[in-house]
């Protein structure tokens, strides 16, 4: 419950504090109410004073093992028990276990006559007895100012109240004193003069018929505290306060990437998709496919086994499921598997704070990795843009704390510049996709740009965005002399390009054929020449062989002749080299 107090490191040097256990309030006050001192909580009727005080006691008893005394001056114990039971506080059990004492102080002015001086010793004794009976550490006096209407002589009362608060301090109990808001003062009887350690003001405002509650720590002696007005909520779990800037931008940025669910879009975003834990804004005019981008992102998370939480502010879950079937996406299985959860609420159903709280609760309960808000712009009613911006800022903080990758869709109204985000939250966004209508040749087509994407290389080009019956497709667009071409114009261009390409291909083919033909002719010529040569060679070899045979015959005949004439050997020897050389000479020729 009590959040880490990183923003106030010097907590040890500060006052000892008594945690309220109320979500958010301990953050604002840096740990709770001043321990052992009285705190004044004031505000108009129905702003939640009694409840805050009661929750302080109940949490003390339940979470911090500090018992408490609730002294009611306006409601009877029975009424109180009933009233807080609706918030899940079982007072009967707590009183039975001696954790809490409820004491109803009843004053009927008609019954009372004053005669001479008096003091409030009876109240002191009564309170003291209640405190001692259970060893209470916490005390609530709700609303002690009603004593003024019940008892005469305000001078005595003032003096006695001052004494009471001093006495409470001496007792060392942490006390809450509630007070009704006065005309020009914080409380009707100026109690803030006496209770000056810590003053918290509650407020309840109605703007555009939607009410919102706010809390402000006016004063906290000896301690730093959040000074803003913080919205708070009362719901079935009691009070929760939402510190606007609770985290001082200290989140650790993840370098992990998470696919967008559209492969081509991943490619546009440097090939890997969004950063994990970043926030993505998809803005576009009506009917540009924002919801489809959102759903695809959720589906891709589900298909990885992650949980996706889808806040829809305009369509009911079944409507989204039906519509997504038309582009071939079936969400039903993921819903059944419990990976995809829808939360559909009309923005007007509650104030912004209430939405923020329900969102916060749903996120805490479901623990999603991916959260979708579709569309954010529907929160803008009238001129509450500033508040919505504040809410979105807190929403983003909330998501970053929870390490959710968040996708917001935002509707751009026709006529306004498409790059002007209606909420002026552009600077808070990590990745901003713009879906745009491109109107050419009597038709509208969708285009997608990446306006920005922090910390990653991304394409600066527009892609055509097609919703097909098998999901979303991104196509390159044609950039020609007449601008960007999409849709039919792109198809025409595609056809033309294809024709040109075919022509070129045919030409290349014919050239190749020609070359082949030439090669064949050449080969044939070479073969013919070679054949002719072979014939000649054979003939030549034949002639050579004959001549050699004749020569041999001649030599033989000469030898025979020599033998018959008895010639000397030297002569025959001289002739032999000449015979050997002859064939060589022939071959060379």
């Amino acid at each position, binding site marked *: 419950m009590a959040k880490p107090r990183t923003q106030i490191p010097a907590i040890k040097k500060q006052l000892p504090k008594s945690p309220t256990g109320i979500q958010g309030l301990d953050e604002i006050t840096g740990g709770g109410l001043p321990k052992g001192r009285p705190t004044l909580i004031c505000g108009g009727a129905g702003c939640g004073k009694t409840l805050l005080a009661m929750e302080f006691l109940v949490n003390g008893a339940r979470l911090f093992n500090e018992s408490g005394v609730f002294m009611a001056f306006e409601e009877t114990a029975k009424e109180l028990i009933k009233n807080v039971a609706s918030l899940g506080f079982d007072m009967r059990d707590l009183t039975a276990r001696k954790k809490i004492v409820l*004491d109803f*102080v*009843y*004053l009927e002015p008609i*019954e*009372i*006559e*004053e*005669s*001479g*001086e*008096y*003091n*409030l*010793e*009876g*109240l002191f*004794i*009564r309170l*003291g*007895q209640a405190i001692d009976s259970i060893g209470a550490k916490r005390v609530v006096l709700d609303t002690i100012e009603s*004593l003024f209407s019940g*008892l*005469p002589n305000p001078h005595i009362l003032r003096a006695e109240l001052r004494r009471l608060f001093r006495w409470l301090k001496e007792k060392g109990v942490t006390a809450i004193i509630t007070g009704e808001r006065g005309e020009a003062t914080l409380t009707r009887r100026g109690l803030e003069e006496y209770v000056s350690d810590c003053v918290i003001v509650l407020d309840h405002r109605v703007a555009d018929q939607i009410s919102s509650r706010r809390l402000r720590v006016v004063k906290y002696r000896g301690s730093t505290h959040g000074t803003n007005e913080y919205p708070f909520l009362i719901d079935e779990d009691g009070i929760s306060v939402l510190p606007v800037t609770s985290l001082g931008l200290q989140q650790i940025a993840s370098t992990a990437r998470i696919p967008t669910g559209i492969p081509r879009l991943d490619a546009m975003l440097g090939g890997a998709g969004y950063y994990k834990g970043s926030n993505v804004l998809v803005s576009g005019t009506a009917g540009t496919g924002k919801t489809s981008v959102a759903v695809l992102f959720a589906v891709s998370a589900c298909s990885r086994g992650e949980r996706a939480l889808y806040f829809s502010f305009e369509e009911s879950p079944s409507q989204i499921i039906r519509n997504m079937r038309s582009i071939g996406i079936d969400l039903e299985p993921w819903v059944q598997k419990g990976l995809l959860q829808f939360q559909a609420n009309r923005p007007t159903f509650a104030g912004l704070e209430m939405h923020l709280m329900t969102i916060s609760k749903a996120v805490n309960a479901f623990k999603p990795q991916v959260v979708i808000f579709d569309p954010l712009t529907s929160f803008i009613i009238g001129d509450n843009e500033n508040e919505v911006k504040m809410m979105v800022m807190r929403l983003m903080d909330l998501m970053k704390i929870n390490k959710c990758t968040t996708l917001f869709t935002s509707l751009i109204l026709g006529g306004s510049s498409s790059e002007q985000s209606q909420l002026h939250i552009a600077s808070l966004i990590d990745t901003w996709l713009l879906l745009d209508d491109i109107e050419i040749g009597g038709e509208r087509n969708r285009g997608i740009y990446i306006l920005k994407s922090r910390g990653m290389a991304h394409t600066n080009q527009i892609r055509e965005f097609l919703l097909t019956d098998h999901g979303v497709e991104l196509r390159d667009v044609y950039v020609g002399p007449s601008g960007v071409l999409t849709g039919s114009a792109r198809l025409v261009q595609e056809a033309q390009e294809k024709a040109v390409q075919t022509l070129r291909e045919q030409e290349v083919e014919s050239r190749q054929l020609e070359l082949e033909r030439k090669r064949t002719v050449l080969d044939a010529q070479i073969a013919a020449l070679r054949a002719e040569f072979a014939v000649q060679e054979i003939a030549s070899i034949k002639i050579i062989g004959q001549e050699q045979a004749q020569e041999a015959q001649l030599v033989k005949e000469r030898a025979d002749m020599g033998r018959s004439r008895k010639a000397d050997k030297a002569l025959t020897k001289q002739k032999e080299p000449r015979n050997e050389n002859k064939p060589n000479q022939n071959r060379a020729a």
Partner: protein
Amino acid sequence: MKTNPTRTGQPKAGPVKAKSDTYVLRLYVAGQTPKSITAFANLKKICEENLAGRYNIQVIDLLENPKLARGDQILAIPTLVRKLPVPIRKIIGDLSNTERVLIGLDLRPGA
């Protein structure tokens, strides 16, 4: 009467008569402070003068019986509670203003 009146410490007086017109008076004090002593003295005097023989005073010291403060919704000290006759009336203070005490006890018609 739910709470059993406890008589304590202080001198108490008055003949006990169970008559219907008996005034049952309870004086809540916290210790023997000058104020409570004054209050008791004043009360005694007024009763003797106006209700002789028809009253019954119980003095309750909350320091000794703090739990009793709850029963009669006592905040201020001293407080005089007229238990009988009904309706219950309360008079706070040291009862120094006799006139107002008589009005408070319905012993004097109107103011």
